């Protein structure tokens, strides 16, 4: 796709630098060497995910492309790229920051919404971070169900967390603003940009994204970093 370098700006990056407690800086040091992408597990399985390209866009100020991309949500914070980068760029932190930025512009909420159940039920109520129900089917097939394994070893099927600890978790959640956030993503409604009309577009532009509790609108995102095999128009 032809890009217009005149449209780029770097205010986003400069604005976020101080907010991110010093973790997010030095993107301009990037050598574009590709060492990060070469070992990234997400890049190995996703057709178009590429951390190097995201950094490049951030430095160039082509922030629109980053924020509206599907790819931004494909990193899973393994930090392999940070460990290997020759100029010490903490890329997972960049992703964290960029996702917040994307959400502030109305992208990606539906992905976050998927985690709602874990956060509410497993984390806040039971105090555990791995859901006993939703487990990777491949692992279950290969290794067996962890609950069975625990039982065989004479442990309760699910890890037990004391009430005290659960109360503490909830307190942390309240203080850190997570509880509030959970309420906010209560209902997510998707704008269907593929059926966009000039009228909707106008509405979309003129209206700030609703920040009200319980109903966040979100935009479609696009495969901005390469077309998945099979052509262009299935983004």
């Amino acid at each position, binding site marked *: 796709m032809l890009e217009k370098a005149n449209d780029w700006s770097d205010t986003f990056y400069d604005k976020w630098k101080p907010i991110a407690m010093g973790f997010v800086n030095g993107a301009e040091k990037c050598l574009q060497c590709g060492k990060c*992408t070469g070992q990234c597990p997400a890049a190995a399985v996703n057709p178009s995910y590429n951390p190097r390209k995201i950094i490049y866009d951030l430095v160039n100020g082509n922030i629109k492309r980053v924020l509206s991309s599907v790819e931004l949500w494909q990193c899973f914070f393994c930090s392999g790229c940070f460990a290997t980068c020759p100029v010490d760029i903490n890329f997972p932190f960049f992703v964290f920051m960029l996702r917040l930025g994307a959400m502030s512009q109305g992208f990606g909420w539906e992905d976050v919404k998927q985690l709602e159940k874990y956060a509410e039920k497993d984390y806040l109520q039971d105090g555990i971070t791995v859901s006993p129900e939703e487990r990777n089917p491949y692992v279950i097939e290969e290794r067996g169900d962890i609950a069975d394994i625990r039982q065989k070893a004479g442990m309760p099927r699910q890890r037990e967390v004391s009430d005290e600890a659960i109360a503490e978790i909830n307190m942390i959640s309240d203080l850190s603003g997570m509880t509030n956030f959970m309420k906010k993503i209560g209902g997510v409604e998707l704008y269907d940009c593929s059926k966009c009309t000039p009228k909707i577009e106008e509405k979309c532009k003129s209206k700030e994204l609703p920040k009200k509790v319980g109903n966040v609108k979100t935009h479609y995102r696009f495969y901005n970093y390469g077309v998945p095999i099979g052509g262009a128009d299935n983004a």
Partner: protein
Amino acid sequence: MSKKALVIGGGIAGINAAVELANNDKLVILVEKNGELGGNVNDMAATFPELDEAQPLLDEQKSKVEDNENIDIKFNSEVISVSGKAGDFKVEINEDGNTVAEEVGAIIVATGFNYMEPNDYSEYGYSRLDNVVTSQEYERMVMNGDIKKYSNSNVVFVHCVGSRDRVKGYRYCSKICCTYSAKHALLLKQEVPSANAFVFYIDIRALGKGYEEFIRDAIEDYGVRYIRGRVSKVINKEDTLLVKAENSLIGNPVELNADLVVLASAMEPQKDSKELAEILGIETDDYGFYKEAQSNMEPVKSSKEGIFLAGSCTAPLEIRESVAMGKAAASESLSFLG
């Protein structure tokens, strides 16, 4: 009466400085830390960009020094103290355990570089995996014929190991590893035509006369495959090596099975370069390379009058430039030798 000159370091730069001075009827003391002359060129099979055999070239250079009665070579020696000023230095040299005092008019420093051992690069598995070697070890393998056993196999050359790396290596570019990696791939193709050569690079820096053409010849005429992307990992997999990187020209990660991985490691300053700088009273840069009086106009003068610099003790350099600097340093020092 004319004064003697002192040349520290008997690499290719020091040899040329000494010969040049001797040809001008000056007496030269050549102090070499090791038991032989030639420095890093001793480990070299052939030279770019003409692929001349290195050892005959070096032997010719060495014989010029050894046969010369104006040059007093002190092997296994080091300079331990320097006092006085330009035109009238008093130096003490530790020669094989004995201290000798000398008076010299000028000093030429040509102590060369150290080849970095990439032990910190656990992702490349150097010293942990067999068949992961540095370029210098590879040159020796070419010389003793060890690479012959890699017929029908994949050999991967990795650029910028230890260079262009703020975390585990140096920020500078080692300048010649792009060209010598191309040389290595070419040597492979010549010695073992059935082998495949793959070179992983960030940029190709061919900074010298004929170097660009040399590298393009490797790609075009010898079919060496150049892939843009810094190697991320080398993993041991069922008695071959798995090399992982990104082909950043397409934007996809790529994997490659290799039988030999060659790391183009950085050329770093000698470990004792800062101590020697203190003895001599000259400045170094942050890395430990010796600093010129002025980087554009005075490439061979050190920060102290009467002391000159030559060769790769100032920065990573190829032979051609080391030789040129040796000769230039010799001619500049003549004015202090009466």
